């Protein structure tokens, strides 16, 4: 924020440790508005009126579909039932036992977890590194980088994926050309998709490339709010660079970092388009992630019930992360 921004009297510092948690190197709770007076009990209906439109909108779009998904997962709904309205037979937990008993499903789950972990670690690591580095860059370099990040972020998925697909093409791809011509390796005609490890390297690159702008820009903003004086004082006191980061910088950006990481986990867990498009709308079995596996079951194998069951399982798997996410949020929410 610039100094010219609207006056915010005694802005609360981000990363302020929540009251009750042991303080890192920061002062006492700031002298901002005393907590407790923040919330007040006014006309008890007003807050409900304020959230009503949101509730109505969410309910209108999600409630019945969600119930429908749960119902479908205990039935056997195919195209015929979907189209003709014929009653679908109830099958109890069959869909779930089928899925859990399917070896391919577990392969897909592990692959998804692994892929998600690698992507999130790479995205967050690169993002943090770049954001830290950006603070120390010349202004021109920083502006150019920001521009590139912004343009990358705005590119439609379909187009970005097409371009990465060309890059990695075996016959006319720039990647093979560069490796062969400039690095002297024999990558002529090399197919990156035959070995899923290499293939996922490319898909991971699309995912990470697409996610890094959001992370860098956000973390960079968080970093601008770390008091420079503290960093300097710490390093004059003889703290190493890692020490400064650990005790001064990290506590400030931690909440932001956690939030982005959590969102990244959710987004990367549900990756669909990147895999689907880059494999020409027909990913091979060894390229299936949960997102594409769901799609295959529901639309291609004509079992919308299996698809529904898989999506519920996905939600359950993700809710582990969600609990963490919620706790973070509610913890912060508590002290407001």
């Amino acid at each position, binding site marked *: 924020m610039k*100094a010219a*921004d*609207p006056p*915010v009297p005694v*802005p609360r*510092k981000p*990363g302020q440790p929540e009251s009750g948690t042991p303080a890192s190197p920061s002062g*006492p709770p700031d002298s901002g*508005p005393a907590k407790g007076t923040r919330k*007040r009990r006014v006309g008890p209906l007003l*807050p*409900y009126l*304020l*959230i009503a*439109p949101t509730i109505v*909108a969410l309910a*209108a779009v999600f409630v019945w*579909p*969600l119930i*429908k998904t749960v119902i479908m997962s205990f039935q056997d709904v195919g195209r015929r039932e979907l189209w003709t309205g014929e009653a679908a037979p109830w099958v109890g937990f069959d869909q779930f036992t089928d899925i859990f008993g399917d070896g391919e499903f577990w392969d897909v789950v592990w692959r998804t977890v692994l892929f998600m972990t690698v992507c999130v670690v790479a995205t967050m690591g690169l993002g943090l*590194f*770049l954001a830290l*580095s950006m603070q*120390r*860059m*010349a202004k021109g370099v920083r502006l*150019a980088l*920001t*521009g*590139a990040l912004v*343009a*990358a*972020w*705005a*590119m*439609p*998925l379909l*187009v970005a994926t097409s*371009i990465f697909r*060309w890059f990695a093409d075996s016959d006319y791809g*720039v990647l093979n050309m560069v490796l062969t011509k400039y690095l002297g390796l024999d990558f002529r005609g090399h197919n990156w998709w035959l070995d899923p490890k290499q293939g996922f390297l490319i898909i991971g690159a699309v995912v990470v490339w697409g996610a*890094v702008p959001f992370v860098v820009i*956000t973390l960079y903003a*968080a970093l*601008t709010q770390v008091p*420079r*004086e503290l960093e*300097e004082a710490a390093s004059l006191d003889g703290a190493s660079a890692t020490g400064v980061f650990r005790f001064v910088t990290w506590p400030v950006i931690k*909440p932001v970092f956690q939030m982005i990481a959590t969102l990244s986990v959710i987004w990367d867990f*549900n990756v669909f388009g990147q895999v689907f498009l880059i494999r020409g709308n027909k990913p091979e079995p060894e390229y299936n992630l*949960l*997102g594409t596996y*769901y799609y295959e079951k529901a639309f291609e194998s004509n079992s919308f019930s299996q698809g*529904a069951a*898989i999506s519920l399982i996905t939600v359950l798997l*993700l809710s582990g992360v*969600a609990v963490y996410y919620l706790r973070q949020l509610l913890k*912060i*929410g508590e002290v*407001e």
Partner: protein
Amino acid sequence: MSVTAPSRGTVRPSGKSPAYRPDRKTRSRHVHNLVGVVAFVVMAFPVYWLVISALRPNNEIRSYDQTLWPSSFTLDNFQRAVDMPNFGSAIQSSLIICGTSVLGGMLLSTIAAFAIARFQFIGRKAFMMILLAVQLLPPTAMLIPIYIQLNELGGLNQYWGVIVLYLVSSLPFATWMIRGFVVNIPKELEESAMVDGCSRMGAFWRVILPLLAPGLAAASIFSLINAWNEYLLAYIVLQDNDKYTLNVWLMNFTTSRGTDYGALMAASTLIAIPVVVFFMFVQKNMASGLTSGAVKG
């Protein structure tokens, strides 16, 4: 942190204080500049490729002798892109749908954010949980149930059907982010405004809203990118060809006989321009917006 609490503006890493550790600083400055240049190249290269592909003759795009610079430039691809039927109506649809869903989303999320930031009420926690839980639902998995729901509501082949879907999909994130800004605004400001004779709504509009601007900017760019680049829901819900949005229209370049990549790249370049412009416009606000919002949960 209260040590000499500088205003946030002055702690920008301007590098204007080379007074201490001069050697280490310049050396590390060079290293960081190098990192910046490398990162710039990596991030910008696909973007560069998009623009350059749009400008080169169509048969060179997938040529076996890739060159980093085209042998010649042509605007043919742009011509074919613009000549594709329904370009005009697609621009109109995209503007209507994205504009309305972003504005509507901002309105709903601001008042909801205001409620959860300023009031303690029963069900507040539950509401926040719902906001987060909604984000866990895998989007493709909900396709058919949501379609059926929209069918019941009569929103098929209607702009508002798509608008509602886009609005709802960005609501949780926007609400969460704006809430962080509302809690940052001291309620004294609001109260003093009310003492001056403003109603609560008046206080909101005149005092709070301006302070929310960065948060709104941040949330709106997210919603805009979501809506602008969405394809599948729009394609399935909208049926008349002249109601298609730009991203659906983009698919016209693929027929059973293959894809006209030159025109596709040219069209995507054109489509990306408004987003980039909007982005550049609010980017500064957004960076700070994101942080404040996120930090406060």
